[in-house]
């Protein structure tokens, strides 16, 4: 039998971390699928990576800065145009506390 990499409880925990609600059926289905996918991912364990630096990025660019000058910004109306709920000049959020 294949190794169990992730339990249903862990899938629930990851879903909570990622802010994704899951139905009961999805929890079962995703647990099964994640185990198969993670099993495939663990193939990378075969590679010796001692003393190999990570590649976060393929370019040699480091710290791209620009002058700290105020540029053109979008007008308030067009920033709010896609907001599902707004009030005056503000986005309206659900209750936070």
């Amino acid at each position, binding site marked *: 039998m294949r190794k169990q990499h992730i339990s249903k409880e*862990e899938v629930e925990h990851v879903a909570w971390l990622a*802010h994704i609600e899951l139905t009961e059926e999805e929890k079962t289905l995703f647990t099964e699928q*994640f185990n198969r996918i993670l099993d495939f991912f663990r193939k990378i364990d075969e590679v010796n990576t001692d003393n190999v630096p990570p590649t976060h990025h*393929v*370019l040699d660019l480091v710290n791209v800065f620009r002058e700290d000058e105020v540029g053109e910004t979008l007008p308030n109306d067009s920033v709010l145009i896609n907001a599902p709920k707004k009030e005056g000049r503000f986005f309206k959020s659900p209750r936070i506390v």
Partner: protein
Amino acid sequence: MPKLFELSALDIIEKIKSQEITAEDYINSIIERILRVDKKINAFITLEISKAQEKAREIDRKISRGERVGRLAGVAVAVKDNICTLGIRTTCASRILENFIPPYDATVIERLKHEDAIIIGKTNMDEFAMGSTTETSYFGPTRNPWDLSKVPGGSSGGSAAALIADMATLALGSDTGGSIRCPASYCSVIGLKPTYGLVSRYGLIAYANSLEQIGPLAKSTADCALLLSVIDGYDPRDSTSVNIPLNDFSKGLTGDLRGLRVGLPKEFFGEGVEDSVKRHVWSAIHILESLGAVYEEVSLPSLEYALATYYIIAMSEASSNLARYDGLRYGYRVEHDDADWSRIYARNRRIGFGAEVRRRIMLGTYALSAGYYEQYYLKALKIRTIIRREFEEALKKFDVLVGPTMPLPPFNIGEKIGDPLTLYMCDVLTVPANLTGYPAISIPCGFEGKLPIGLQSISKPFNEDLLLKISFALETNAGFIGRRPEL
């Protein structure tokens, strides 16, 4: 006489500029074509018919007054729906962005407009570009114009299908793990993923930033070179945009390949690749040889780990990028939102995102989480270094690497979508170019029955001109570019 919608971009521009035809007649011919065939294909999510006609008339007026017009004057371009277009709905084929109207243009769109191109519509794709079949779209799958029961490839499936069905003359796609090259291969068009940093990503809705590039799809090599030369170049708004002198991509389009050193990675012709695909790619290699190229086998042993490495990195980046979809500033938000913020956030995302997007966000969250970070994400980044070094080494000896784009011909809609891992396997030959940042192209090289096969070529950074040179050589000597499906 060919219909206007069948002509190449270069022909269209020449005829419009010389007033042999009007931009309006041409754009109407494209629109009629779309209205007639897109019912069968579903390549477009949003059409911009009246704006396109208006723009065409404006170009005609400019020309009749003797004013200067741009390098893409009048040409209908189909744009993948993850590229922001000012005032035109941009959905990423997701319910979460179903009604999103960008308040600005992506840099590539500004450049198209500056050259008087006409945006004809926004094309269908896998949701958030996560897929290789265009089946995960909230707006339904796109069908392959060569066989309506088959997938068109993905994730830029709408762009490739729109082109080969003559519903657009040029198209833009984006490529994170093969999303330009895969549908180019499956629809028999040319698709190029530029070197990382050559084309600005400003305004491209992010999936995995360290891997993706916007790139051209076209029906001829010269058209592909032209579109690339319009969108490439430095953009201060993208901090990963590279400021270097640009190549003239049209210069090498001669068909002469004397002295070109071609490496054939044996891992690209391994057991996972179907024999029919290998056969067609080999015929194309013999054509390259007859034009003066020399080839030799090469081995890139770490390619075995490229697919797992790619998916770990892509999913990790996706989990971070897609955290922004909270239903607050834009995007789907449930009606009844009087529960607390984090529950509403989680509910918006369950309803707004499809299953594959949620899978990738969650697996990426897992790979980045405490206790697993070293084992998955950091390990993958280190293997990325090893793969890069192998490519660097191989491309010291060879000018280009050549192999198939896809390991198998287009398959049935619905055939693989139920099994995520099997579907991921289809990307095995395309992801290395994203991990390394190297430029890569898919060129039509044959048909298995009526289904297209594509050849992939990869080169050193900023050697797009070599890739286009090979494409041109195959275009003039193999005869597959230019064929159209019956619709």
